[in-house]
């Protein structure tokens, strides 16, 4: 048995997003702010979204973590910006399929740069790293006021801090 394919994991595109993240920073007036951390490893993300008429107008992320979590967040914001929020669920589902090893999902153009993360499927302990930003997105959708899907209602700002999971830390 040979080692897992590190070259497939650490592709140039992933390192590029890690070192030059897209949409990094904060929005002055986000419709929703989600802070999420993974207590097992200490990765953190702050996700800001501004949604108008059901379209993700602006998205930013901050925080810190490994190359996989940071690249995943950067690539996710790329795919979200300018697209209908309603499409995010399908995108997340597709991404999850890819991380579970679906070759078909890994070829789906809708995932854009995210396809470079297909190699994570061979490293089960790192799937959580890739999912952090997506768990924050899911939480953001839950917290967004109804006005974002129905522009007739007035929008407000929503902030929330959540832990990724109830999983406890280990060791010492």
């Amino acid at each position, binding site marked *: *048995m040979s*080692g897992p394919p590190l070259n497939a994991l*650490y592709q140039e595109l992933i390192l590029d997003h890690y*070192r030059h993240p897209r949409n990094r920073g904060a929005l002055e007036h986000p419709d929703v702010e989600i802070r999420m951390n993974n207590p097992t*490893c200490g990765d953190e993300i702050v996700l800001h979204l501004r949604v108008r008429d059901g379209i993700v107008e602006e998205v930013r992320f901050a925080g810190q973590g490994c*190359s*996989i979590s940071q690249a995943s967040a950067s690539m996710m914001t790329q795919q979200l910006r300018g697209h209908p929020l309603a499409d995010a669920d399908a995108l997340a589902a597709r991404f999850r399929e890819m991380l579970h090893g679906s070759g078909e999902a890994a070829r789906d153009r809708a995932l854009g740069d995210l396809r470079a993360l297909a190699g994570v499927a061979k490293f089960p302990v790192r799937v959580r790293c890739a999912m952090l930003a997506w768990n924050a997105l899911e939480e953001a959708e839950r917290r967004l006021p109804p006005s974002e899907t129905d522009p007739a209602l007035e929008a407000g700002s929503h902030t929330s801090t959540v832990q990724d999971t109830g999983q406890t830390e280990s060791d010492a």
Partner: protein
Amino acid sequence: MSTLAPPDPAPSAPPTPLLDVERIREEFPILHQQVHGKPLVYLDNAASTQKPRAVIEALDAYYRRDNANVHRGLHELSNRATEAYEGARLRVASLFGIADPAELVWTRGTTEALNLVAWTWGQANLRAGDEVLLSVMEHHSNLVPWQLLAQRTGARLRFLDIDDQGRLDLSALDELLTERTRLVSLAHVSNALGTVNPVRQIAERAHAVGAVMLVDGAQSAPHLPVDIPALGCDFYAFSGHKMCGPTGIGGLWGRRTLLEAMPPFLGGGDMIDVVELEGSTWAALPHKFEAGTPHIAGAVGMGAAADFLAGIGRDAVCAHERALVGYALERLAEVPDLRVWGPRDPAERSGVVSFTLADIHPHDLATILDAEGVAVRAGHHCTQPLMRRLGVSSTARASFYLYNTPAEVDRLADALRHARKLFGY
């Protein structure tokens, strides 16, 4: 209640400081395997150590031959189980130089031992305005129990800082240690940096202001030739699984006068003397703090681990690790862009080396090293405040034990060079 006889003298250590590592490795079956197609290099010993055949066989023999509940049966197996359980206490007491084995309480590990002190001694002795002195390098298990205690009592936590090499800054001790200080609780060895703290010296200073001194020995009990009473502290906590023993067993040593004055921790069977409907009296030490059926097999395995370490000689283990850390510091210094955290002088360290490499996140490093068969820890090491103090989110950590070799240090250094290549350096 069983009576506790004085322990047998510890088997004497071999005079030579050098270990026959190849022979020792033969005693650890788990080390002889391939991981991802490469021979395993296990360098995560500060998290948990591997178990020698003697410990595995002691657990097996206990369950095959002697298993029953302790301290209650009038039958043969219960007598054997009780003897094995209390005999193990004597062996561990002997290893640590504890003359009175009734001062050694079995716990699940260091965390439970620290919580025991916080809930019993702490709850009974701390009032609003009292102070507990800790340091910024403490493991969460020597921080959170005191935060909870402070919330319950109104006591205040104060913290010793560290210098740029991760050593305690003792210049502030006079200012921090006052007549309000009731407890000083410090790690003997930092799990994240490997720093060996001068706990004996600090214990003297603590006693001078009337404070009680607790030593978190999770990382010193396995690696230093610790004689607990000689440390001059009042409590000492340790874990079995970090010193060749099973998980789920560890201990708290405390001075008899303190333990006797403390209220019990958990209530239940085995910790009582007489029980009435409206109240009870407590068993003698150490059983007052050992409610319920204990981890008998764990204690038995811990006894075997104590014998194993005593047989090899803890001075030799310590010298071996110090030499290995010295070699690791040299080899890691040759890896470009690598930064080692903690004391520069190997004499100030135990067998832990924490490092970061260029802009490669420690989790990525750990994955790359794992693919090369090298097991290290990456993350905050349950010391989030220390990571913040150092200005890093996390580090990678290689930690050594008696079975590690210079060739394994070379494998670590080679794997780190490979990581640089993968990240385009």
